[in-house]
């Protein structure tokens, strides 16, 4: 869920996390059940359920639907994201740093939906400067152009210059120089102009 939504929840906060979880499940279920309207009152219990008109049965995908799904994935990787198995309790899951933040903006940045995130297009090691001791390509507050080199990601001894895909101001660098980064990992937050 986006930080936006998270905030709004925090404001209306009369609900405990378990309640929210339940509600989410209920809503998920209503959605899956293709329900258009749902009312409920408690004082002496009233229920009203109205199903949405069905365009076609969901569930099992055929070939054409699959193509559709592929497009969905491409557009929005998380769209069809499965329920994640809950954490194992038995053994510690020491996931490496890159895995932990995989492809998702970290809390601080994402608060501001207007920021643009420059992500790593490859797996490798992040460097802020062209060579050790040289000054960084960019620093916080710099104005950068579309196509301007922001950093290097080294992969297989090759130094890959990573260019900005937006023009604007560097608001934050999200990784440390020398840190391994994975595909899609956020590198910089940029305020577009």
């Amino acid at each position: 869920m986006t930080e936006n939504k998270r905030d709004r929840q925090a404001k209306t906060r009369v609900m405990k996390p378990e309640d929210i979880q339940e509600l989410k499940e209920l809503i998920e279920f209503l959605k899956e059940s293709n329900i258009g309207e749902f009312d409920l009152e408690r004082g002496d219990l009233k229920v009203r359920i109205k199903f949405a008109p069905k365009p076609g049965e969901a569930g099992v995908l055929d070939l054409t639907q699959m193509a559709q799904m592929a497009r969905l994935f491409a557009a929005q990787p998380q769209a069809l994201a499965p329920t994640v198995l809950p954490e194992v309790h038995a053994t510690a899951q020491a996931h490496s740093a890159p895995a932990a933040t995989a492809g998702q903006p970290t809390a601080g940045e994402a608060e501001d939906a207007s920021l643009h995130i420059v992500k790593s297009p490859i797996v490798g090691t992040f460097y802020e400067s062209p060579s050790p001791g040289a000054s960084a390509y960019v620093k916080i507050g710099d104005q950068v152009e579309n196509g301007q080199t922001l950093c290097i990601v080294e992969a297989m001894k090759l130094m890959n210059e990573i260019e900005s895909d937006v023009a604007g101001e560097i608001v934050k660098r999200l990784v440390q120089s020398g840190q391994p980064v994975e595909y899609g990992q956020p590198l910089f937050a940029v305020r577009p102009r």
Partner: protein
Amino acid sequence: MFHKVLIANRGEIALRVICACKEMGIRTVAVYSEADRHSLHVRFADEAICIGPPRSAESYLNVPAVISAAEIADVDAIHPGYGLLSENANFAEVCRASNIKFIGPPPDVTRLMGEKEKARQAMKHAKVPILPGSDGVIQSDGEALEWARSVGFPVILKASAGGGGRGMRVIRSAEELPALFHAAHTEAMNAFGNGDLYMEKFIEQPRHIEFQVLADEHGTVLSLGERECSIQRRHQKLIEEAPSLQVTPKLREEIGRTLKKSLEHVGYQNAGTVEFLMDEDGKLYFIEMNTRIQVEHPVTEFVTGIDLVKAQLRIACGEKLSSIVPEHVPIKGHAIECRINAEHPEKFTPSAGKITAFNVPGGNGVRVDTAQYSEGVVPPYYDSLIAKLITHGHDREEAMARMRRALGMFVVQGIHTTIPLHAKIFEDEEFKTGKFDTKFMERFFERQKSQ
């Protein structure tokens, strides 16, 4: 032993390798595409690195991405699983250049076995029986007759210049040879402007039988017996068994000895599978060699008691085969594997989507290898295998009975699977007898249709 291994694969085989590593105290690094973020191989590895977008070409098949991941995670070795990069000699070479141990044979051996004709010749040279074929073009019906007699009927004539069945004739006796030879010649000439023909031994009812081998890095090779893989649909294996009812202990011993000699000769290393066709008389002919762990390796594990993936890791670490495997490995009981694919059980259309219910069978003599779970998603980008159901019994009867009850208890909802197809095959009389060949599925579908 290795400290840390990267698994360059996904799905059940990635999880299989992770399990072996965990049991050996080796740290594991999973790599994954964006579509597999919630996969169990990601979940259960010690570390996980996203290497690209969903398409395999940009993630699992992306050599620089995999090598980069291996470098940033600082692993000692890469296990390639099956498919994907597992038989890519170039990848193995890049691993070597990057000072990362590739868990498999050396690149040159992979390359040799990858070129079918070279592999055939290498094996022929090492006295492994290969499917007889004429050395080049057959010039006349007289030469054809001579050659046919030397290998025995039936034989098949094929056009040197083309395919698609044109110029192709199966010849079952000397009497019909001349007429068929000339017909084939004319047809090839008309179709391709070239009437050249060559000949091969023809097997009417071939079985697909393969031998599992292990080879250490000190020149020792051992055969672990065979698997019967004749139940195929369009060359895709559906059901595998070990042992084969058609392979006598004597034949197993014999082939084992021949393979040992020939593979020691070519300098084979790590796990591999040698595929054969078996003719109606029980004679085996080499087809090709797969230089990796195989999907169906669990049936061999069940009947030999040897953990093949652990053996791979230990071999790659330099251990001698003699410390990994007893010299003589008896075959114990009978094991069968069903490949559970996310496919429609009759139309075979792929069936991606979210799994809404997933109940795997358990109990005595049942093994399930899967990376799926309730609420998991089968993405549309990769192959359709979602689980392997393997049963073991004292004999084929018990293994089959177990499979029937296990199939009945395997519940997958939300997507289509081949479970109902397997359930039907295990009720089929021909299947039950164990006397079938690679054309079994065609006959099976005919029988199903006529019901």
